[in-house]
């Protein structure tokens, strides 16, 4: 079940070691350990309040663990001060659950924000503008540059936030519930974007979701760069299957961590609630 660890493997992109996070004495994450290697995809399931958002925030140093260690690109971020985190944060893109676009800025300024504010990223104005337009074209929003977030629909805001997360081409991307509250068509488009962002540059991806279809799409499909659409992998590439794993959280604990087949066969009633049985 665990992949064979050979010594010459690079350090994991993200590693949690017995991490516990609590707020005012209330446990949000309880002794969570896992690791994600370069190019891997993780799908995170769990009921509301099970700690998924807290986990993603902890990976960025936005929530501090009480116990345990978190390694991002091999560095223990629990030992770093807030001011020392900017280097690591510039390599991680995050889509927040509520999009978290800055209300006071236009879509263009929002998407450009990481390019011009991450200390580790140096970007000329002209090149920045080109990257912003590229990122917005990527999410098919290139006509909304001058609009404010409040003028967009929920799905458009989500896409603009994805553009902001991917504009710096970070090697690690975290998506918090990218499809929550969206219609199935928009939701599938967004998942297609996530798969596209992943496969265009083998980005390590963590995705929180409530919909099993999302996980299934991400696990079974890949983006074909030639014809620009998703295609099922279905046995063509055995290594691909192993690179996607599923994690299930319950009340702050990681209760399942394994490949899709194992998830679908689980007899645990909590876990099987997240699995859409297909006959």
């Amino acid at each position, binding site marked *: 079940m665990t992949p064979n660890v050979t010594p010459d493997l690079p350090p994991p992109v993200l590693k949690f070691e017995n991490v516990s996070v609590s707020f005012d004495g209330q446990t949000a994450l309880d002794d969570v350990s896992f690791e994600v290697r370069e190019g891997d995809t993780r799908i995170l399931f769990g009921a509301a309040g099970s700690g998924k958002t807290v986990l993603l925030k902890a990976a960025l140093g936005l929530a501090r663990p009480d116990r345990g260690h978190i390694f991002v690109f091999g560095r223990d971020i629990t030992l770093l001060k807030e001011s020392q985190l900017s280097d690591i944060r510039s390599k991680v893109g995050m889509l927040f659950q509520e999009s978290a676009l800055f209300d006071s800025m236009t879509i263009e300024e929002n998407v450009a924000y990481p390019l011009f504010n991450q200390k580790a990223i140096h970007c000329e104005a002209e090149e920045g503008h080109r990257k912003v337009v590229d990122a917005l074209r990527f999410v098919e929003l290139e006509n909304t540059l001058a609009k404010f977030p409040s003028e967009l629909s929920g799905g458009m805001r989500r896409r603009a936030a994805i553009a*902001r997360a991917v504009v710096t081409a970070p090697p690690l991307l975290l998506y918090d519930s990218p499809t929550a509250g969206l219609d199935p068509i928009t939701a599938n488009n967004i998942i297609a974007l996530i798969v596209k962002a992943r496969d265009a540059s083998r980005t390590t991806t963590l995705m929180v979701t409530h919909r099993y279809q999302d996980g299934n799409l991400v696990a079974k499909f890949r983006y074909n760069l030639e014809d620009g659409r998703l295609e099922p992998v279905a046995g063509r590439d055995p290594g691909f299957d192993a690179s996607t794993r599923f994690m299930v959280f319950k009340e702050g604990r990681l209760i399942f961590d394994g490949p899709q087949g194992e998830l679908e066969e689980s007899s645990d009633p909590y876990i099987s609630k997240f699995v859409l049985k297909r006959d």
Partner: protein
Amino acid sequence: MFEFLKAPILTVQEFFILAGQALRNVVRTPHYTQDIFLQMDIIGVGSLPIVILTGFFSGAVLALQMSRALSEYGQVGRTGQVVAITLVRELGPVLTALMVAGRNSSGIASELGSMKVTEQIDAMRALGTDPIQKLVTPRLIATCAMLPLLTVIADFVGMFGGSVVAAMINIPSKQYWTSVWRALEWSDVVQGLMKPFCFAFAIALVGCYYGLRTSGGTQGVGRATTQAVVVASVLVFILTFFITKIFVSGVVNI
């Protein structure tokens, strides 16, 4: 035993940590100059109408009340003096600060509070910006710069309001303005400018503090806003008492 003191002491401690960080950032890069000017416009120019209105009418009502009281001693001619001293030392700074607290402590708290509950503050940190540098320090600088200016404007408009009343009760305009001018000493002016400068810290930092610690969705934003206005207003009164005390007891001699 002193368990009940824990929460307020923690609050005060957190407040001073925020104040320290905000002040430290004044001399640190990056400077968000554009945000400073934007806040100056919102806080300074935006508050001008209400400050002018309250200034005018408080000066006017002061002249009305004082001229009546002074007439008992046959000293109606000194109305200008009393109006000027009261305005410059006390009413100008305090009333202006209360107006700005009501307008901007609440505005700051609700703006930062909604940013907090919609994860924009987290996003800001994730995208490499210190929210204190980007949000708190510009608001602090802008308030510290604008509140003394607003107070000066309120003082002058108030004295003008007083002169209108003085004219109505047949005090010659020249006499009114001469007694205003004679009344004011340097220490009054210093006091009248130091107060708004100190109030500015309270107004900006209280707004930012309650905004940044907002939790509990939109309801929490409402709560933070109310708390910010109440605490900032009370602090204005407490501060004015202590600053006046310092000047009256002559700790500061000018």
